[in-house]
């Protein structure tokens, strides 16, 4: 406990704010499913809180991917209608947590975050969020339309191509 407290006190104030955002993002994303018709059970909420806490403590670790996976799994399995407007809140929560972790990784824990860098990423984050309502609106518009033949094959192929391209670029 003392180690945790000393680690928190060593953080700069701006880093502390980022860690709070990292923690709140996934929690908000899961709780947003409540208004859409499915509040998370206590053990799901507890699991998300634990994962989000670990993500806030270690923003550069693989826990971040795990917490994202958990949120996506909840939204994939828990709801009958995932296109409730609350999904916009969930998307915002996930993006805020991701960008806060990204900003926290720019320097050591004790280093305050550069305000110019924060402004840059706030602009970028707003730009990225613009696509969310567009895709959500498109999905709403296409809901109920008859399924095009081969749409899933095209989707899987597109996903595979993107995965291979990303793998090539990363190696």
């Amino acid at each position: 406990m003392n180690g945790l407290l000393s680690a928190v006190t060593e953080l700069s104030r701006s880093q502390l704010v980022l860690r709070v955002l990292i923690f709140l993002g996934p929690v908000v994303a899961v709780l947003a499913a409540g208004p859409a018709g499915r509040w998370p059970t206590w053990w799901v909420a507890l699991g998300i809180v634990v994962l989000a806490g670990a993500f806030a403590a270690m923003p550069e670790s693989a826990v971040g991917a795990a917490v994202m996976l958990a949120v996506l799994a909840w939204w994939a399995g828990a709801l009958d209608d995932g296109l409730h407007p609350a999904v916009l809140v969930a998307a915002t929560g996930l993006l805020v947590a991701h960008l806060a972790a990204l900003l926290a990784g720019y320097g050591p824990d004790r280093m305050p975050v550069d305000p110019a860098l924060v402004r840059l990423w706030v602009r970028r984050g707003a730009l990225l969020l613009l696509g969310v309502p567009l895709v959500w609106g498109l999905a709403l518009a296409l809901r109920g339309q008859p399924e095009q033949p081969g749409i899933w094959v095209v989707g899987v192929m597109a996903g595979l191509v993107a995965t291979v391209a990303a793998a090539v670029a990363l190696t």
Partner: protein
Amino acid sequence: MTQPVTHGDAVWRPTAALGRAVFTAAVAVAGALLVGEPALVVLAVPFIALAALGLLHRPTQAPRLTTHLDHTSLHEGQGTTSRLTVADAGDAEYLTRASGRPPYVVMRPHAGQVGALLSGPDGAGPTVEISPRRWGLRFVGQEKVALMSRWAGFRFGPVPLGGQHLRVLPMAAVYDSRADAPQPVGLVGAHRSQRPGSGTELAGIRPFTPGDRLRRVNWRVSLRTRELHVVSTRAEEDTAVLLVVDALADHGASGGVDGAASSLDLSVRAASAVAEHHVRSGDRVALRVVGRGRELVGYGTGARHLRRIQHTLAGIRSGEVAEAEAGVLQLGVTGGTVVVVLSPMLAESIGAVAATLTRRGVPVLVVDTLPGDVRPGVAPGTDPDLASLAWRMRTLERTAVLQRLAALGCPVVPWRGPGTIDDVLRRLARRAAQPRVVAR
């Protein structure tokens, strides 16, 4: 002074953020396709864009980094700037510097941890201001530098950059003395000597003798006595000052230039101040360090000589020497030298040498540099009561040594800054003018 770039194995690597974005986007799209849930695509949209933009801005060029300090020699409390120059950093967007934390060194901003957006492929990175707070040889400028690509997809480094040694000279303490040296026997200087000469200090009025200059004639006395009289003056000569710094141990904790001073802090700063004063007065100053390094600077004068003394003082490290333990310390003092011993007076050899020189008729002044609230450093596992008793016994012995020195005529004064040794030097000068019996 330039620090060469050392990043042989540093390459651009994907960041955790890029990995997370790619993973989230891939899982969300795959999940949407598998379970037919379009909400997952909505959630994945920002991550798909982030992953794509991060990958598109993959860097191809390795940046070159160069650091340098504006100064390599400073006085404690002064500051210098560590500058970082970047070249071939067209792929980089942000630069982060994380400096190490050497003892007794203060860095700004944010303890040397600073970052900034880069304005171009070549140019200067953020600067770090460095201020050493204690004299000595400090290793500063050791840091890690990282660069981030656009959209934070790739990180270069952190690249460890080696630091460099910074010689921190003792603080230029405010010190001035108006007292004359006890035994000036040099050629030309600022101290009144006992012999007549062409100085400015009035020695008396005496009858005219052939060879006297006419401008020395005192007409008022000559008219009254109807015989020519001249004003006689004392010669002004320089003196030799030997500074003996006791570095056998460092007692007390040092808080740097802003905090508490240890015994060695006081000794070094006092020696620097006294040396500076006497060098500026035109006196010949020498330095002898009694300690591990046994540093020695011969007699000399001038700004370069003062610099040499200060550099030597900055390199002092405390530690015992066999010579001092054996109590046969030889200082090689010649006639006409004033010896200033700067010591906490806890070593027997220092007290012995001061007593020996005093008995020989050499003007010796001991500046006591033991801090008032000093407590002994106790090894782990030592009984504190036993350590306290031992320290009390040691301080009693020290008091006895100081009393014996005072009885011999060797003054002991605590260092108090300006004017510390004025009164003592005046008394020594008066005593030097009186006839005395010297033990040989």
